[in-house]
């Protein structure tokens, strides 16, 4: 780390100045060389690999570094350098790094396999996956990294949206825990009329991926589909349309908090933690925080249940993340070994408190169950029943179009049918 050492103090001749700064730049470049990660090299299953993870994932940096240390001890030939970035930066860094091969292992969100797979930014690992996994891992989990029948990674951090409710509020209003969306509406109306809470429901319907997650869950519940078998958008008919109409209805009837159209998952958590909502959909993380006395005004009152079912089903939105081998990796075998280790049942069980395992049998393991008993009991069935958002290469732009349309319908600037028709035609036309 050097700065230009010459400064403006000495009236040197121009040439001397250029010589010195040239030398300084050279030295600096050399220093930089020794300073950064060495590119991955080495023969099969040995060498150095660089891994890209997310900050504030279910696992903390310390946890992942612990797992990495254990892996390196078990595989002395391999050295791993993990780096951590914010979630928003994850996608952009994977894209920018792809041609350069900066990373060997990357963490991928469930909505990216189509995009990364079709553009060959991550490697097809279908042939590396043992066939046994297809029965021992939740099928919904394996789908996380699937695109057109091929697998592009191994699921690692499982997550889905559960149904959370405030036990005390429901008891106060004398309603039973709802199991269908109709029951939810009835319960909400009762809660509102008995003045237990002004807006019993709160959702994350801000113009962001969050609204698509909620929409997907309802679309599945009403038996809808995003795309038909030919890949054409059909969410503007049947279950898809009913889902959006349901969302709008709860707003119109005053049982959904109007700030939902500006809320993200964190706002939902805060609202329910402040005792200003009785029921909400959210990811696993809300359970611990909602019941934490340091973070919540209603600790111990938040319970978790399977998402309510609609006329057709009760799927949870798949919000998992998978580990993949980046296509620029010069050491795919070592990368695969690292991924195998991190996703192995032993490691997953060990850290189950932070993120539930992908292995079905883990959910009967007492060590796992006792980490979060209420959640594990629900997760066992919910994780078996997840709905995917459409796996298309242009998912990002399709999602943006759908987000805007849903927002238009929810804020009353278009009818649900108009909004969805508009979105469908925009997505269908490339």
């Amino acid at each position, binding site marked *: 780390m050097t700065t230009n050492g010459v400064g403006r103090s000495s009236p040197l001749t121009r040439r001397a100045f250029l010589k010195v700064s040239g030398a300084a730049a050279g030295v600096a470049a050399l220093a930089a060389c020794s300073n950064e990660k060495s590119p991955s090299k080495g023969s099969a299953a040995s060498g150095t690999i660089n891994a890209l993870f997310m900050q504030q994932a279910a696992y903390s940096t310390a946890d992942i570094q612990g797992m990495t240390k254990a892996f390196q001890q078990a595989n002395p030939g391999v050295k791993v350098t993990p780096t951590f970035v914010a979630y928003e930066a994850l996608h952009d860094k994977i894209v920018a790094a792809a041609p350069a091969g900066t990373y060997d292992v990357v963490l991928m969100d469930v909505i990216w396999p189509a995009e990364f797979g079709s*553009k060959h930014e991550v490697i097809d690992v279908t042939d590396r996956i043992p066939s046994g996994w297809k029965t021992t891992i939740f099928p919904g989990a394996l789908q996380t990294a699937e695109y057109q029948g091929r697998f592009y990674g191994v699921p690692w951090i499982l997550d889905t949206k559960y149904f959370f409710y405030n036990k005390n509020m429901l008891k106060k209003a004398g309603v039973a825990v709802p199991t269908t969306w109709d029951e939810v509406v009835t319960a909400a109306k009762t809660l509102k009329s008995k003045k237990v809470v002004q807006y019993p429901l709160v959702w994350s319907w801000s113009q962001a991926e969050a609204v698509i997650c909620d929409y997907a869950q309802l679309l599945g519940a009403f038996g809808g589909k995003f795309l038909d078998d030919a890949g054409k958008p059909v969410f503007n008919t049947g279950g898809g349309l009913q889902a959006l109409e349901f969302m709008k209805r709860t707003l119109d009837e005053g049982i959904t908090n109007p700030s939902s159209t500006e809320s993200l998952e964190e706002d939902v958590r805060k609202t329910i933690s402040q005792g200003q909502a009785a029921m909400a959909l959210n990811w696993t993380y809300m359970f611990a925080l909602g019941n934490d006395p340091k973070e919540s005004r209603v600790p111990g009152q938040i319970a978790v249940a399977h998402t309510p079912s609609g006329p057709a089903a009760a799927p949870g939105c798949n919000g998992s993340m998978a580990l993949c081998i980046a296509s620029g990796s010069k050491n795919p075998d070592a990368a695969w070994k690292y991924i195998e280790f991190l996703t192995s049942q032993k490691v997953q069980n060990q850290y189950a408190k932070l993120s539930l395992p992908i292995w079905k049998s883990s959910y009967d393991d007492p060590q796992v169950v006792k980490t979060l008993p209420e959640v594990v009991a629900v997760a066992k069935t919910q994780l078996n029943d997840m709905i995917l958002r459409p796996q298309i290469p242009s998912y990002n732009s399709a999602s*943006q179009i759908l987000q805007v349309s849903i927002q238009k319908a929810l804020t009353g600037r278009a009818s649900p049918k108009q909004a969805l028709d508009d979105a469908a035609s925009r997505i269908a036309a490339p």
Partner: protein
Amino acid sequence: MSGLRLIQGRAGSNLQRERRTALLLILPSLAVVFGIILYPLLRTLWTSLFDVNSPFPGSYPFVGLGNYRRTLTNPDFWAAIRRTAYFTIVSTLLELGLGILLGLLMNVQFRGRWLLRSIMVLPWALPTIVNGTMWRWIFNPDYGALNALLTQMHILSHYRSWLGSPSLALNMVVLADVWKNTPLAAFLVLAGLQTIPKELFEAARVDGAGPIRTFFRITLPLLISTILIILVVRTIEAFKVFDIIYVMTRGGPANGTQTVAYYAYLQAFSNQLFGYGAALAYMMALFILGIALVYIRLLRQEVEF
């Protein structure tokens, strides 16, 4: 005199020597500026002529000016330009107007003026990312300080949403940007005011001119250079605005705050349309250059070129 002529010397060889010295002096700047970015600049220009949909180098269909045509015929692009224009015009005018007023205020000799000047540095010192996140929190519809303040002062009866509707959200982003950048304009105006000789004000006072006439007849014309600098710098920055959108609204709601730089970012990174994104970026640069030239022409000032 003869010494002076010695160094100014004969025209011919001196000019040559001057040119050589100039070249040597300017070479480091050129190296630093273009050294590392010349190749990327040219590469992006080249990319903009192809239909590129992944970051990998490879053979892509050549579309010539097709990407540029696409930007000009794409309604989303023009919508983004409209929003960017609104953002740029409103924020720049507000910063200029408020900057002039605040500069005048900071020029008055009153006790505690140093305190005011020191406080004015604060928004400027706050990084844009922090500024955006802070205002996003202040505008929060459920827990924000703005809602709390207005309801406790009984100006509002209940909490309301500030970033929930497209046009209001854009105005709130303008507010956050103006809060951060007005001090810069104010300090530039303050400095400009220092260069105006006090005798002019004295003369105006003796002639019986009131404060308003003095301002428009004397102060404003002499501040033209300052105003031009503020306009040029703030317009360029406002047109390129990205960071504050990234942290405050991510382009929403309903794309209401999707400025052209954020739109280009989405096309390039989210949609991996690198050819189109490259064309968008160069179109942006052309727009900005055009605006800068218009300013210079309009205010008929030679900006040190």
